[in-house]
Structure formats: C-alpha cells, structure tokens
C-alpha cells in the first residue's frame, strides 16, 4: 500500500467518522444510535491501523485492536444490555429540533476547519488533514450531550466525544503513549459500568431517566 493511498483511505475514513457523528445527531431510535456508534468505532479502529501501518508505529496496532474490542463490541453490548433491562423504547428526545441541531453541527465543523488551518500548514504528518474532523467529532459529541434530554443518549454523546479525542490524538501526534491509551480505554470501560449503575439509581429515585428530574437535586435555600 503506497503512502498516497494510505492518505486517501485515511481521509475517506475521516469523512465516514464525521458522517457517523452527524448520524448520531439525527438518529431518533436508541438502538440505531448504538449501531452508528459501533460503526464509528470500526472506522476509528481501521483508521488507526492504517496510520500505524504507514507510519511504522507498532503500538498503534494495539490501540486499534483495543478500539475494536472495547468500542465496537464491549461498550455497545453493555449499553444494549442496559437499554434492554431498563426497557427503554424510544429514548431519544431532544431539546432543540433536529434540523437546527444539524445546522449548528455544520457551523461547528466549519469552525473546526477554520481553527485547525494553521496546524495543517505547519504539520508534516500524513494525518494532518483529519485533525479538523477529530475536533468536530469532539464538539459534535458535546453538542449531542447538550441537546438531548435523556441520560442514555448523553452517555453515547460522551463516548462519541471520547472517540473524537482518540482520533485527534492519532491525527495530531500519531497517538498518545500506549500507557495513556490503555488507561483511557480502561477508564471508558469503567465509566460505562458506573453509568449503568447510576441509571438504575436514577430510575429508582425519580421513576424516569429524564434529566429534568434531576433539577430537584438543586439545593434550594
């Protein structure tokens, strides 16, 4: 595989990751969200492996494998079990309607490209053009967390945000040191378990997973 081909494939994967980010924003069904999230993980994993191959960095293969295992299989499975047990049917309710969210999302992407322009000119890495996509993925994940009402979708938004961070690390500096990545991966996995426990707690306390209920927690004097 030639260097140019690798860059082309990587760009394609970046585009697909961006597409899945938008997919997460528009998807109304909660199982659909899980599928899109899993696909995002697949693209991320392949992209990492390709970068590892063409840059000759072996530790990126481990990262790619870890991404595949955790983000494509483990996390969606945990969330699937959770959703199943909590009997969530149609959990996606948003505060801002979807077309508006899409427009804000497009603005965010343009903003990211504008922001990373100076880095693209300075950097010599093959992945430099994908940095903008990585930043948009982070911001879109955050946007998803802001605009959704229910707790489960917030978690998926958070995990998408983390995907963006991982992608940013790969595209900006060919990945973080392996130790850091291992730590982050483990954290994500543990976070998923903690979220799961919280969901049950929140539901038993409020009879709902709507975050609006949590306003009651505010300390009124």
């Amino acid at each position, binding site marked *: 595989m030639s260097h140019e081909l690798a860059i082309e494939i990587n760009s394609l994967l970046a585009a697909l990751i961006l597409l899945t980010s938008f997919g997460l924003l528009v998807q109304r069904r909660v199982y659909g969200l899980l599928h899109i999230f899993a696909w995002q993980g697949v693209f991320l994993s392949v992209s990492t492996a390709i970068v590892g191959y063409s840059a000759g960095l072996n530790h990126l293969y481990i990262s790619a494998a870890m991404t595949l295992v955790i983000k494509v299989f483990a996390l969606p499975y945990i969330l699937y079990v959770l959703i199943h047990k909590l009997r969530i049917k149609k959990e996606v309710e948003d*505060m801002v309607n979807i077309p508006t969210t899409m427009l804000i999302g497009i603005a965010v992407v343009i*903003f990211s490209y504008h*922001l990373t322009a100076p880095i693209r000119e300075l950097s010599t890495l093959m992945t430099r053009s994908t940095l903008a996509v990585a930043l948009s993925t982070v*911001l879109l994940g*955050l*946007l998803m*967390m*802001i*605009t*959704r*009402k229910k707790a489960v979708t*917030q978690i998926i938004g958070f995990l998408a945000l983390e995907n963006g961070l991982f992608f940013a690390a790969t595209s900006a500096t060919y990945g973080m040191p392996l130790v850091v990545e291992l730590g982050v991966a483990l954290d994500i996995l543990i976070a998923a378990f903690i979220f799961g426990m919280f969901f049950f707690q929140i539901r038993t306390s409020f009879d709902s997973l709507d*975050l*609006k209920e*949590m*306003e*009651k*927690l*505010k300390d009124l004097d």
Partner: protein
Amino acid sequence: MPFFSPLPLAFSSIVIFLMMAGLALLLQNRQTFLVNMAFFLSTVSCGIGLYAGFEAVASGSMQTMIMPIGLPDLPFYIRVDALSGFFLSLASLTGLMVSIYSFDYVKGILSARKATKLVVFYCLFMAGMLLVLISDDAYFFMSSWELMALSSFFLVSFEDESAENRRAAFLYILIAHIGAVMILLSFGILAGFAAGFENFMGYRFSAMRSAEPGMLWASIAFFLAFFGFASKAGVVPLHVWLPEAHPAAPSNISALMSAVMLKIAIYGILRVCMDIIGVQVWWWGGVVLVIGLITAVMGILYALMQVDIKRVLAYSSVEHVGIITVGIGLSMIFTSFELRMLAALALTAALYHCLSHSVFKSLLFMAAGSVLHSTGERNMERLGGLIHKLPWTSALFLVGALSIAAMPLFGGFVSEWLTFQAFLLSPVLPNALLKILFPLGAALLALTAALSARCFVKVFAVTFLGQRRAVPTTETHEAGMSMRLAMSIAAISSLALGLFPSFVIDWIDTVPQSLVKGRIASSAGAFGWMWLTPISAERASYSAPIVFIGIFAAVAVAWLAFHGKKAATRRSATWDCGFEKMTPRMQYNSTSFAMPLRRIFGFLFVVSESVRTSHAQPGSAPRIRYSLRIEDRLWYVFYKPFSDAAYYLAKQANRLQHGRMQIYLLYSFITLITLLVFA
C-alpha cells in the same frame, strides 16, 4: 552528632508521637489499653522533649540537620537552637502534665464514646507542634503548621454531634487558613528576595535571613507574618475563634491549645518577625505594642462578662497573649533603637510570661475539666459550693487563679512585673511619641492586671464558694488520681516559677542573646539567687523567697492565733438577718458580680438587657424575667460585613446553577469554543 543531644532527642520524641498515632488505629477494640498506652508513651516522649529543650537552651548551641525526606531537590531542614529549645521545653512540660491528666480524664469519657479519634489526633497535634519548632525551612514549617492546625480542628470537633461545636470548628479552621495564607505570602516575599522569584532555593530560613527586600516589602512581609501568626495566637481582632473553639474541645485539649498552641504562634512571631526579618524600624514594634495592649484589655473585659467557665479561661488566654505581645513589641522597639539590654529584658519578660502562662493556664483548664467531669456543668451560674465536694480541685484552681491574677509568689507575678520594668525604663527612648505612649501602655497593663484579679475572684468564688445554685444532675465526685497529680505538678511548677525567678532567667538568657544580642542574667542575678534585679538594684528589686517567708510567717501567726484554741471555731449557717428564707439564688452570681464593670465598659460590647415583669394570676407575686445578651462588637466590625458579602456573592453565583445538566454542558461548550477562538 551524639544521640543524647537536643536535636536527635527532640526528633525521637516526635517519632514516638507519630508512631503512636498509627498504632492507635490498630488498638481500636481495646480502648482502655489504648488510652493507657498512648498517654504513657506521650508522657515519656514529652519527658524526652523537655530534656532536649532544656539542654538546647542551657547550652545555647545550635544543631542542624538535613532530612532525607521531602520533594526531590527540596529536602526538609531541621534545626534546634535556643529559641526553639525554649518553646520545645515549654510545649513538652505542658504536654507532660496534660498527658498525665489525660489518663483518668479520657477514661472518664470512654463510657460515652470511643477515644480512638481523640488519641490519634492528640498525638498528631503534639507531633505537629513540635515539628513546627524544629523546622528550618518554609516548606517543612508550613507542612507542620498545617498538621497542627488540621489535627486540632478534628480535636475541636471531637464531640461533633452538637451544631455549636461544628460551628466552632468551622470558624477555627477558617481563621487558621486565613492566617496560614498570610504566613505563606510572607515566606513567598522573603524567599523571592532571597534567591529570586524564578526558583525555590530561597525556601530555607538561612537563605531568607540574608534577603534584603527593601523597606516597603520588608514591612509587608513583617506584618503579613505578624498577623498570620497573630490569628493563631488569638490577638484581637483575630480572636473570635478562640472563645468558641476552646470550650468546644475536650478539656485536656483546651489546655494544650491554650497553653501550647498559642505559644507556638508566639514562637512563629519571634522566629519570623524578629529572627528572619529582623526589626528594622521602631514603628513596627509600636504597632505590635498597641495591638498587644488592645488585646490584653479587651480580652480580660470579655472574660469578665462570661458565665461559661471555659469561655472565661479562653478569653483570659486572649488577654495573656496580649501581654506577651506587649513584651515582644517592647523588645522590638528597644531593638530598633539598639538598646540591647532593655530589649533582652522585654523579651525575657515575654518568654517568662509564655512559660508561666502555659503552666497556670493548663492548670486552670485541667481544673475546669475536672469540674466539668464531676458536675457535667460549665455554666458558673449553676455551680457553687464545690469546695466541699472537690477539695483538691478547688485548692489547685486557687493556686492557678492566684498565679493568673499576678499575685506575688506565683509565676504570673514575676513575668508581669518584668514587663512593667521594661515599660518603666522608657525615658531612655529617643522618641517623643513613644515617651507618651509608654506610660499610657503601662497604665493599661496595670488595669489589665487588676481586672484579671477581679475576674478570677469571680470565677473562684462563684464556682467553689457559697452554695450550689442549681440542683446537681449527677453525683459530684473528686477528680481521679492522675488528674490530681497532673494539676499538682502544674501548681508546684507555678510556685517554683514564682519563687526562683533568678534561676529561670539565667536559663532563658541564651534566647535573648541569640535573638536581640543582649542579656540580662548577669545583672538580674547580680545579688545572688535570692534577689531579682532586672537592670540595677537602685531601680527595682524583688526577692521572692523573702516575700514567701514573710507571707508564710504572717499566715502561720494568724492561723496559730485563730485556730490554736479549738473551742474558738464554731460552724453554723450563714446569718440571714432574720429573714429565714435564704435560698442559693440569693447569692452573688457571675453576672451580678461583673455588673459594675459592665456599666463602665458597656460601650465596648453590644449589650442587650431586659427585665420583664408578668403577672401570672392577679394577686399572685409577679414573675420577673431578666435576660442579658452580650455580643462582641468587633464581630460586627470585622466579620459580619465579610460574611454578608460572601453570602451575597454566593447567592449571585448561585444564579448560574440551574440544576440542568444540559445547561452545565453548555457552559463547558461555550468556554471551550471561546478558549479555542481567543487563545
């Protein structure tokens, strides 16, 4: 360095305390054994510390060491010299007495709660205080200082089920932190000027001593350090935590806090303000002197108004810290005019007062603790007549009261007398303002001493004499063996400090020598150990042994004259003027005894007094209710505005808090975008 020299001994004493704190956690299930072992080790360790401190002062030598612990490239430095040795022996002496006292005292509270927490933090508290004394760099000093502050916080909140105690502990930790921040800033200035602001190399005290910050920055560093330590010492207006925290803590801890911790703060003032920064202009000392005088007068006036016996003692600690501060201020003024000998005299007076105050104040707190222990009551208005039930405690409390009221024969007299001597030598000063200020200060100090005597007449009489004012809820019993022993040691020490001042001054002499480069022992003891002649015999002299013999003879003659014939003693009820219906409520009580002074000095307090007469039924005797509330005016000046402002700001900031997670995320999102755009 031989092992039997001050520094290794002081260090091993600290190590024993730290070990015991860890060990206490393992012995949780054997409370009685834990208490016995902890306070036995604490007694031993204080004994070692006392010897170490005594040796350090007596030899006047200095030992330093670099510790293998600390941050990389920033090791801890420790040092014992005469000044730290003096406070080391003071802390250990008080610690020794309080440890002995604690055997029975802590066992007395075991039935109500576990003592593990008390033991752990007691050991950490002692270790923290001793570590402050031996640390020789800013970093180690602050760590030890915080260890002391935090462990004492947990001791104050030991009985944490009462909201009042929790509030007291909060106030204490708040003011302790404000003080610590000021000390840290002062160290920052000094370290910065010593080795540049880019590195940490100026953190050693020896480096700071060579710093030359210039007049403005030196003044800022001086007053930051002074007020930082003053907040811990309880100097007005930073005293508000003290009367809250001392009564809240268990009595053995109150004794330690009042007798030792306040002195550690005094040590801080001496170490940083006088040793490291060094007095450069006279008005620094002038400010310290004026603040000390205000503290002394206000402290004793507040003490007079209180009805809680431990609060009285706490406020009286404020007064005595004021007197010590006066001595330090005088010493600073004399130093700035290069009057070495007078500076040494004032400093010796301050140190002597530190020593005698720790002895008699721990005695009084321990006695108050045994009153509390046996009656369950702190309010003097409900006590009285305890001299019959608690003969030991009463007699020992009387010794403490005589000493604190600066009666001859006891420690308190000598130190206050020395402070007066320093005042009365003011005509030699080359400054007109100070010449006016000094007699005024001496008058205020005299007023303080008189009010202090009145205050302790009140405390002793209302608590121990007369008749019990309220029906006892528990059976009143005398204090345990170890408590009596500890109080007796304190009483004897106080008497010894009063009877043999020449020896003590001779011992202390190395401290002023190293700090202000002057000494008074040769002139003070010029006429043998019987006579104390601070500057010269023509000016003033005092012979405690002769006074003692005189008083002893007078008492003996009087006793023989009145008690010699047995038939002359007749016991009967108090003459009631034929009224026949005497009740204990007709006695003078604490509030009525203090009333004349409340009339005179009422403007210093916020006094709300009301008498309500109501007729329950027509024809029956009217019911009269008297209520009195005395509040600290300074609270409204120095604290209320700040706490109100803090609440207001918090309320405004609270508007940002909606309780909606999405809004919080939006805050992060906007912050992120803003930073990305502009940074």
